């Protein structure tokens, strides 16, 4: 009994000290967010490492993709050099935490705007639009959601696909993975009947992987993808918005599309279905 009490009190002490330590993480002296970045000389951006053609690491270990293209431009306009950007690789479910824990300044990891997410971070204006798509094997194509009843659908944790099916089709069994690569691998191994993800991603994937088709190309609402900053960082958000308007004038995102997405899509996707210029969905 004595030993038990000792154990319990030890745990309580530990928990208590954790609480005290957590209190230490108070706000550092208020300094303008943009000045902080300039002082550091590096813009820290959260991007995907496994979501081609939006954010991925190429064969030479370099970050590439639609999101990365924008990140480099932001660094160039803010710090004068497109190489003054530090990429932090994230998985879908950790995109908000990296902002909250101050690990990055901006999340540019193909982040769809949702009401739940808006409560946690501040979104700038959109630079892309997306709906859900479902990819399945050619031999057993899934062309309507009803076909999924009683079957396994592969999704990624922390994506809009997961939320959409949990809310709207609770009777579809979801098989949830952490990384895009693992999820697509599981589809190839036949662990689920189909895979749901952003249509912009599954288009590119099914084009590259023979034997798979995007049976459902548009599901759910048309969502906006936007840069996100830490809640309350209005200064940086406003700067990004001005920047997006400026970039819209030079049709920057059409150029971005040509450079990064066209090679993956070919002519199968119309840029107007994906690209958002000037931060406003028309």
């Amino acid at each position, binding site marked *: 009994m004595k030993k038990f009490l000792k154990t319990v009190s030890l745990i309580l002490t530990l928990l208590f000290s954790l609480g005290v330590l957590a209190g230490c993480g108070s706000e550092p002296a208020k300094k303008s967010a943009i000045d902080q970045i300039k002082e550091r000389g590096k813009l820290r951006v959260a991007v995907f490492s496994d979501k081609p053609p939006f954010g991925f690491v190429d064969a030479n270990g370099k970050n590439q993709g639609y999101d990365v293209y924008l990140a480099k431009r932001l660094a160039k306009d803010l710090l004068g050099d497109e190489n003054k950007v530090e990429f932090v690789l994230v998985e879908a*479910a950790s995109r908000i935490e990296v902002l909250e824990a101050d690990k990055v300044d901006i999340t540019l990891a193909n982040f769809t705007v949702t009401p*739940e997410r808006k409560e946690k971070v501040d979104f700038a204006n959109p630079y892309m639009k997306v709906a859900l798509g479902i990819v399945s094997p050619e031999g057993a194509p899934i062309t309507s959601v009803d076909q999924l009843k009683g079957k396994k659908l592969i999704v990624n944790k922390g994506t809009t696909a997961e*939320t959409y099916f949990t809310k709207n089709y609770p009777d579809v069994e979801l*098989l949830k993975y*952490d990384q895009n690569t693992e999820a697509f691998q*599981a589809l190839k*191994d036949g662990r689920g009947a189909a895979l749901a993800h952003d249509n912009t991603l599954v288009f590119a994937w099914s084009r590259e992987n023979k034997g798979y088709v995007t049976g459902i190309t548009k599901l759910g609402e048309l969502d906006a993808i936007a840069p996100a900053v830490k809640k309350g960082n209005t200064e940086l958000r406003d700067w990004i918005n001005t920047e997006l308007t400026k970039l819209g004038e030079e049709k920057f995102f059409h150029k971005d599309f040509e450079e990064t997405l066209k090679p993956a899509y070919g002519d199968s996707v119309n840029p107007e279905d994906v690209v958002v210029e000037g931060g406003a969905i028309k």
Partner: protein
Amino acid sequence: MDFDFIVKSIPLYVKAAEVTLELSFWGILLSLIIGFICSLVIYYKVKLLAQVVQIYIELSRNTPLLIQLFFLYYGFAKIGIKFEAYSCAIFGLAFLGGSYMAEAFRSGLEAVSKIQIETGLSVGLNRWQLMRYIILPQAFSVAIPAIGANAIFLLKETSVVSAIALADLMFVAKDLIGMYYKTTEALTMLVVAYLIILLPISLLLTFIERKVRHAGFGN
């Protein structure tokens, strides 16, 4: 802290805890069997088999469980052998745990002094009786703390099975974070859930340890 959210997610955690416990139960049980057999093979220096076991132990102890699981789940699927995630997890745990248990049992077996064995032989015990009445009781009492530690280690190791889409405790916590962004709540509940499972086991092991030590040394 959003306590409504915590209360609402308790059933999810309970269900996940069942998965964690079930996986650990089978994993630990198989580890004990594999470990015991392997330790005997090494103790008796069985020809050829002892080398195989030695290779297995080194291979299993020097690779992380996550890698072993990926190999079983994604690697084997490529060459046409497809295991369900559940069997992969139990296989993985048994593969990893077996070697740790083997080393624990071996340390016990080797701790039994030569004099004990020679004395046993001199009073005419055969090999089986020697094992049953002289070696095992003493070996067991020496090995039990290590076995207990390994059991707890294996239970904690189950936290990586979420990587192969199994809904254990870690999976649920990460899932809730991904969907509702209640990071603090989900992680706090995760820690509490593991404590609720592990504290009683830890206390039980302390109790068992004292019992077998009593048998071993009479104090």
